[in-house]
């Protein structure tokens, strides 16, 4: 319990200080954490004793190098888990965040490394969490089917979304396959032509297929 609270504290400090680039005030910190002020104070004292943080003038808190490292590590675990839970398992964001909050303290670094390797292609947010949302319309230079217009000749680069992948694969929509965007309604429902067949796709499926223009 104690360890997880300390990690939460470092995580919050790291998050706030890297966002604002200055020492963190006590009030800012306690707004981020769900603990009583006494608890936070005693944890901060502990952290200071261990050399993870330092107090600057006015009582504001600064992370030392070791504290920064720990905080970054925890935040990274949190983001990776959250990304996996929402993007791969389809959990809703709030639930995933809570779940990630619990899991982040027990999960090993190796698991996180492997997990993020596994989702890197489809979930670039895990590595670019520092910046605010700029995912749509392009995800780390990847364009989904919805970014193109009728008549475009395209090549499939990758797909995500485990539920429907199999059917897409069987219809011939696999990485490397050339397809043409035959119809695109204003409401984002589309028809693609693949292997002489027309296949109608819902917007959420089209969004999960990443393509590039054929040259």
């Amino acid at each position, binding site marked *: 319990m104690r360890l997880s609270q300390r990690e939460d504290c470092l995580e919050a400090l790291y998050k706030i200080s890297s966002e604002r680039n200055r020492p963190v005030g006590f009030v800012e910190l306690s707004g981020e954490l769900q603990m009583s002020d006494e608890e936070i104070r005693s944890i901060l004292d502990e952290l200071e004793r261990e050399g993870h943080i330092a107090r600057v003038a006015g009582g504001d808190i600064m992370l030392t190098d070791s504290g920064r490292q720990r905080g970054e590590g925890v935040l990274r675990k949190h983001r990776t888990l959250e990304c996996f839970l929402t993007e791969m398992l389809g959990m809703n964001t709030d639930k995933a965040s809570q779940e990630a909050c619990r899991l982040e303290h027990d999960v090993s670094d190796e698991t996180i490394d492997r997990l993020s390797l596994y989702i890197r*292609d489809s979930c670039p947010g895990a590595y670019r969490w520092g910046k605010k949302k700029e995912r749509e319309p392009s995800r780390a230079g990847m364009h989904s089917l919805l970014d193109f217009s009728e008549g475009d000749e395209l090549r499939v680069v990758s797909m995500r979304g485990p539920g429907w992948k199999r*059917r897409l694969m069987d219809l011939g929509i*696999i*990485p490397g396959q050339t397809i043409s965007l035959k*119809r695109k309604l204003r409401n984002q429902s589309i028809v693609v032509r693949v292997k002489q067949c027309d*296949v*109608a796709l*819902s917007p959420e499926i089209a969004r999960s297929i990443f393509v590039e223009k054929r040259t």
Partner: protein
Amino acid sequence: MKVALIGNPSVGKSLIFNQLTGVGVEVSNYPGTTVELKGGSTCYQREMIDIVDLPGIYSLDGTSEEEDLVRTFLQEGMVDAVIVVMDATRLERNLYLLLQVAEFGIPMIAVLNMIDEMEKEGLEIDTATLEYQLGIEVLETAASKGHNIEKIVPLVRSGARKATLTIPYDRSVEAAVRTLEKTLGAGRTESLWALQGIAKDGTVSEAASAITEQIEARHRMTVQQIIAANRHNYARTIADRVIKTRETKPGFDLDQLLTSSIPGIPILVLVLLSTLLVVFIVGAFLEETIVDAFQVILIDPLLAFGLPPLAETIALSLAIALQAGLGIAFPFVFIFYILLSILEDTGYMTRAAFLADKAMHRVGMHGGAIIPLVLGLGCNVPAVMGLRNLASRREKIIGAFLITMVPCSARTVIILGIVAAFVGILPALTIYLIVFLLITATGLLLSRVTPGEQFGMILEMAPLRRPQSRLVIKKSWLRMQEFLFIAMPMLLVGSIVLGLFEYIGITAMFEELIAPFSEGVLGVPPYAATALLFGILRKEMAFEMLAILGGTANLSAIMTSLQLYIFGLVSVLFVPCVSTIAVLFREMGGRITAAVTLYTVGLGIIIGALINQIFG
């Protein structure tokens, strides 16, 4: 000898099956309508040949119900030979399935169907080279014209053999297969299944899953993806060698019109409305004719005959059931099914699904679900059965609620017979409007509260074709039989039970009990509530019972317009009929059935009471 027909959805498999066996089987231009296995037999040179029509699938490696069924069927070696039916205009995609079938090592032949359409599209296929590439006999056919169909059985009898092709898989997959073969003695096909996680054998699966992990870590692709890509590539190599394209002038593109927002969506609305209008107008006319004929030929003589009271009650109940059943079945249901078959066979239904996709998302489903919903306008029973084709439990649950609210042809009779006839056409149309709004509201609500994930639509668009009247009639007739066999017996029994209730006086007792409720809440006389209740047996019975219990066919003489309107509306919303409840129970289980039933009862009473409060 036992053979199976296998192929992608809507390649003409069922049509070939029909022509081979002469047994009536539903043919459909909509992907995935043949769910159950259908068998038949034919005689060739004094030998009995059993033929099984397997459901249309895209792949043998998937996990859907149909794919699982077909895979198990082939794995268990239940057939001596397989006939792979392919759509010549979509050869490459069809070859993908053929390659998978070939790996089973069952003697096979390939049928290259729709050769007539292929020529129209300016394609040419070098059949000799294809035969050489696959190592099996290939027969060109055109099932819609009956061309070469008679050669299929002789060819499979004498020429079926195992395919000689070997698909070159990725090096890592080949290595894994070799490992499994060496260490566990598993066959090539079984090893491939195991690598994809669909093998039957436990030890092989276990060993394979370890290898799978390694491969996936190295390639950053799932093994399924690698294997599928290899097969697709091989299919393309073969297709490239055998297909020759002639230059054709791009003709008028009807599809362009049908699938754009404008004019596609207005056309869709027009098509649906005119379908309903035709059913109304032609149906109402025919119904009157049939009902009158029954009255003169059967019912009047029966009454004049003077049987003892009990026998007369039973005989009369039977006669009325027949009169009403056929009076609905032929005019409304049959005409609706004919129109629906035309829409399906032309390939328009898939366009409708595409256009409606986004709107259907709002109510928690996707475009594909429009098929069962439209089907529900004819009869809810086959529509509920059509729910099987939806991917997730969530969609099935939402679909079950919405379908049972769709006014089927029996409810159309109520709206026409009571509201349109005695209150007016405009009020009758408002009932449709109210029902439509309630369906939308229910969908919006359910899409929020129903647990489970939402799958989007991945739907192959059926090619646009000119429907053939012979096939349309045949298919409608087969659907009609389904209706007759499920609904008619229920109807006859229900009618007799009803007659007996009346005879021993249960009906009168019930009326006394219900009186305060029906008059207080809905503002209708107690016998109308009885009529409503019997509407559970068959929807349109509510209408007939009202006339019988009220003692006159001129309903405006005994009830006010408002009462008739409320009666009509409530009986349209109130409880699905017994047949629908039965099929709901079979498809969805007890809890959903109970929920649907309670919901519709509540909805009917609340809406009825509201209207009574506002206008009464």
